[in-house]
């Protein structure tokens, strides 16, 4: 009885300790340090003249281009077009992926139908499907979105399926004994029980979506998009613009990770102790 009370306070204690700010600073430094090392090496190579300056710009040049392209609205326009495609494709993948994955986990028939198909299609690189999608659905955004949705659905399907399979039998038994019907077993037990895996699947799916989208934007001949910016810049040896595009992709990825996925996880599976913070 009082053993429990001490457990709770012992767990909360580190949060209020004075060493917290210092350890936070240390962890920020640990995260930044590798970037500083790479940055310094980059500058050395850029300044040394091993490559022509046009092909290997200094960080200042890239930063200058980044701000110039941002200020004149070109970079944001590219970024927004890409983001819309990314999120549309990813939303498709999320809805269909989670649904198919859960169906496979819940029904033997669905598992028998989908598993062989999914197992064969999943390892094929997304780009291999691109020509087919372009012929079927034409050049442009629509094809890119469909392809992104298709390719990024696979990790979501696999993880949702595994998640449903990993739901503890004892939860199901407890819920049964407390009178849960099939529908509420699903919404109140299977879904939250599988959530850690589903979130992992969505995260992997988003990474997959980025990978294929940037490449497809060039092949699908879309007028705007970061992929288009990066590939298009090659023709004019605009390596600074390419790098600026890459920086934007990294920033968007980081923001989605920190502001969306980590927030959702912290509010759910981490708070529930199902996944370590």
């Amino acid at each position, binding site marked *: *009885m009082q*053993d*429990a009370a001490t*457990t*709770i306070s012992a*767990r909360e204690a580190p949060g209020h300790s004075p060493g917290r700010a210092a350890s936070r600073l240390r962890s920020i430094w640990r995260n930044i340090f590798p970037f500083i090392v790479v940055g310094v090496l980059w500058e050395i190579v850029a300044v040394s003249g091993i490559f022509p300056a046009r092909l290997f710009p200094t960080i200042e040049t890239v930063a200058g281009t980044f701000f110039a392209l941002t200020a004149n609205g070109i970079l944001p326009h590219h970024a927004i077009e890409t983001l819309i495609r990314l999120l549309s494709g990813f939303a498709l993948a999320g809805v269909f992926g989670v649904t198919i994955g859960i169906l496979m986990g819940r029904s033997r028939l669905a598992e028998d139908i989908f598993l062989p198909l999914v197992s064969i299609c999943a390892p094929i690189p997304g780009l291999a499907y691109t020509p087919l999608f372009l012929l079927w659905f034409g050049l442009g955004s629509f094809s890119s979105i469909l392809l992104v949705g298709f390719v990024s659905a696979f990790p979501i399907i696999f993880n949702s399926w595994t998640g449903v399979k990993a739901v*503890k039998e*004892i*939860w199901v*038994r*407890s*819920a*049964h*004994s*407390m*009178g*849960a*019907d099939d529908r*509420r077993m699903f919404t*109140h*037990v299977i879904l*939250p*029980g599988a*959530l850690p895996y589903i979130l992992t699947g969505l995260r992997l799916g988003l990474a997959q979506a980025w990978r294929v989208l940037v490449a497809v934007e060039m092949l699908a001949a879309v007028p705007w998009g970061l992929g288009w910016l990066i590939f298009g810049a090659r023709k004019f040896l605009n390596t600074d613009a390419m790098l600026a595009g890459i920086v934007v992709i990294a920033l968007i990825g980081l923001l989605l990770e920190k502001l969306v996925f980590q927030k959702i996880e912290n509010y*759910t599976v981490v*708070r*529930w*102790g*199902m996944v370590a913070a």
Partner: protein
Amino acid sequence: MVPIAIDNVTLEYDTPAGKVTGVKDVSFDIGASEFVCIVGPSGCGKSTLLNVIAGFLAPAAGEIRIDGKTVTGHGMDRGVVFQDFAQLFPWRTALGNVSFGLEMKGIAKAERDRIAREQLRLVKLEKFVDSFPHHLSGGMQQRVAIARALAYNPSVLLMDEPFAALDAMTRDDMQLLLADVWRATRKTVIYVTHNVAEAIYLADRVIVMSAHPGTVQADIRIDLPRPRDPLSVEFVECQKQLMRHLGHKVSGNGAGH
């Protein structure tokens, strides 16, 4: 609260080597509000029998009747507490876990919160209503599980070694608490354990089972006055008697804990 009849129950497992009889021709009756412990060596099928009573397994022969009605599956007339701490839903707070059964029954939120709080007070966890299970100790989690099984007011409580994974001191506290809860609620309780002292401390009656296949070996009434003192001469005498029943099935001194 209601009587239970266990009538010639036989249960078989499918194994690669063929059918193995886990429980054979087990019969006994349990009176209303009676606290019955089933003890026996591992492999005697005591947990299996509990799962049959809970409706999770179907018997190969025989039947179980609760208040005259034959058991055909799980039902809300029985509350189940397992040994595994993981039985709680980690995504629900203590209060959320306890109100689950009430929610399934369609009881309004205000009412089920009130009942769940009351149940948590019964197991002395009123301060932890909003805690998630992973912030609770093993003993507290098992208390939430007991409150959860009682909340929707089943007439029978089935408990499968609920305190076996706890340390000895916490287990003593929990036994005391369960005895109080039982006195307050007067449920019919079937409690599976391999711990002789625990059985004598809690039970009105102890069913001793023997293994391979699981059969009832003895049915002993414990007439000690409550609350019971585990250090009294009568208690120890009772313990010796029960161990003798288990003695030729388990090794000589292995029946205690």
